[in-house]
């Protein structure tokens, strides 16, 4: 009985969630979308994903080891996730060197310059993506036409995304009903048979991943639902006012990065609000800004910008929108 006992304050038992497990759960949730992308875009999807993931891991390891002189923490899965999300946000015919630059910006500037995991104000993958979009506008908007494994890598046949076609048509003054004839049907869009960034095309796969994240309690529904609901309501009002000059809400939800952004990027723990009230404001903000950019802005797509802009408001949201405390306002009538 002379054994030394461990003494520590309570609690003495712990839940089974770890940072690593949460990160890998998000990665698992992205796998169906990855499978759809490979099915539609062929080898290009594999090249882009591997390049982004490997270079994100390498940059994080190099920066931690040689620049910050700390123990590398790449095994926590967060760099893999950043790489995967960056790949999901670029066309599958993007040259390797551009992806590597994007990974460096995402990890180096987006994450490590702020102190690494947990300290970055902006979603690293989106920082990388937007940097590439502004620096390499031509390569970043040459979308390969989905031809399955016949889709070439850098020599792929390219075409506009449905959002691009819609934007251009409306700007020219064409009627929406005519433009709809030139783009895939809503059902095709739902399965992902359309041009676009690698991981954003297949709504079905992204929703399967969403269900997985909810079942595993990795994220709550508040942010994705508030974004999607806001976009539905906002574009729905515009569509009801003039259906010939505005696309319908289902089109807006299925195209571009709405689902990818709402489910996987806006919900990034580090860069989203802490309270449920805050999550609603943040989600509504992203929805409104997305529609404003899509309908009134110069770019056909605005999800990335919308998320980054709302990321900037998160510290403010966290200060002003606090959870309601137990017994703070009592109404026992």
């Amino acid at each position, binding site marked *: 009985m002379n054994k030394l006992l461990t003494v520590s304050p309570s609690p003495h038992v712990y839940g089974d969630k770890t940072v690593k497990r949460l990160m890998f759960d998000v990665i698992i949730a992205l796998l169906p979308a990855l499978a759809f992308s490979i099915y539609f875009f062929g080898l290009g999807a594999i090249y882009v994903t591997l390049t982004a993931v490997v270079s994100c891991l390498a940059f994080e390891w190099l920066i931690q080891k040689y620049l910050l002189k700390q123990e590398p923490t790449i095994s926590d899965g967060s760099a893999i996730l950043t790489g995967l999300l960056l790949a999901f946000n670029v066309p599958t015919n993007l040259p390797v060197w551009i992806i590597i630059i994007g990974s460096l910006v995402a990890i180096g500037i987006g994450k490590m310059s702020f102190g690494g995991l947990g300290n970055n104000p902006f979603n690293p993958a989106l920082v990388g993506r937007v940097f590439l979009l502004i620096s390499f506008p031509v390569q970043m908007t040459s979308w390969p036409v989905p031809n399955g494994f016949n889709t070439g890598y850098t020599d792929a046949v390219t075409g506009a995304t449905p959002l691009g076609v819609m934007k251009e048509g409306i700007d020219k003054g064409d009627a929406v009903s005519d433009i709809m004839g030139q783009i895939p049907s809503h059902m095709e869009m739902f399965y992902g048979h359309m041009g676009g960034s690698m991981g954003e095309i297949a709504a079905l796969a992204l929703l399967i991943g969403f269900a997985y994240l909810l079942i595993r309690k990795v994220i709550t529904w508040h942010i994705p639902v508030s974004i999607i609901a806001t976009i539905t309501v906002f574009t729905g009002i515009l569509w009801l006012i003039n259906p010939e000059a505005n696309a319908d809400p289902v089109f807006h939800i299925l195209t571009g990065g709405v689902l990818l952004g709402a489910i996987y990027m806006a919900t990034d723990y580090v860069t989203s609000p*802490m309270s449920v009230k805050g999550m609603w404001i943040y989600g509504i903000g992203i929805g409104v800004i997305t529609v404003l950019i899509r309908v009134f802005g110069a770019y056909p797509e605005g999800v990335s910008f919308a998320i980054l802009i709302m990321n900037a408001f998160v510290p403010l949201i966290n200060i002003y929108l606090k959870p309601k405390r137990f017994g703070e306002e009592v109404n026992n009538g």
Partner: protein
Amino acid sequence: MLKTFAKGGVHPAESKYSASSVIENLPLPKTVSIPIAQHIGAPSKPVVQKGDKVKVGDIIAESAGFVSANIHSSVFGTVSKIDNVLDSTGYKKPCVIIDVEGDEWNENIEKLTDLKKEIGLTDKEIIQKINQSGIVGLGGATFPSHVKLSIPDGKKIDVLIINGVECEPYLTSDHRLMLEKSEEMLVGIQILMKALSVNRAIIGIENNKSDAIEHLSGLVKNYPGIEVQALKVKYPQGGEKQLIKALIKREVPSGGLPLDVGAVVHNVGTVFAVYEAVQKNKPLFERVVTVTGKSVKKPSNFMVRIGTPVNELIEAAGGLPEDTGKVISGGPMMGKALNALEAPVAKGTSGILILPEEMAKRKPESTCIRCAKCVSVCPQGLEPYLLNKLTQLEKNDMLEKNGVMDCIECGSCAFTCPAGLPLLDYIRLGKSRVSQIIRSRKQ
């Protein structure tokens, strides 16, 4: 949908290994060390000296104020000394040490265990009897029970809530009491209803004790005004504020007491002690203690005399397992880790939990990823990640503004944190700093 409290909460593995172990009387120890500070409030004043002979139930330390409690001898024997002994807090605390010489009880105590339903005392006499008998909250908080029953002028109580939740994993002492001393408990509830002059009492029991729910639901038919309510299993439902919210949907204001919303809460163990004190004239000198753990040979529930060293309980439950890493007084969420197994059982000791080596260590720490899981599980609607940070930065005014004093220290935040951060350690530190500031402000 079963009732529960609205905000936050977690569901740790229940691990109720001792749920079917019938309460056994633990053999008398050779000596007992009875702490004179085993309740919230002023430590009691010893009224015995070295060499004094005491019988079971004799008073050995007197209440030292309104918020304090009498302490009675749990054995028959001779006071060998009054000395400092390591107790469950990990510090040496003054104890009355008695060498056991037999089991002769004070002659005023009625030893027969037959059920006595007739309540002879008036409301005032009941409260006085509870005060004299040294009864404190046996759920673990050890707040003197007579204080809770003395309702200040201007407050109106309309419901008595009985806490049979036992939301801590592993512990089963309340569960066993509800099954084995059910009628006594129900009479105890009637006594408390009389003392408070209320005509409604609700027993809240979590749904993992369906046998107790069924058993009591059948019996309460003969006890008008008493209801049994099954609750969804969710920790920390046994917290007073959470239990009131779950059962009657009233929210105790921040900084307030249950009586501010017309409710008084007592634990089932306390209710049984009240029955024995009022009906059998038996002061509080023994209680049910669960001895349990994954590697414990014989997970048990013992009726234990106060002051018995913890290692005697462990011996009776099959001895200390080989792989023991940590021994906890209380449950795994709020209990205290013991540094010495000689520590005596006190009035607030609801269980002894033995964790194996692999469960004794904390989760490895990584950085906060701001996942907000601590915010979503906090039953008090606080932001543990923020309180943790503010404590580290010593921002005491911000800590107070962000409600650190509302923390009930349930540990849900630290339990759930995927980064393994010691959130509650820092919040406790912040709380103690802020409470010092509040005290100095009042002076």
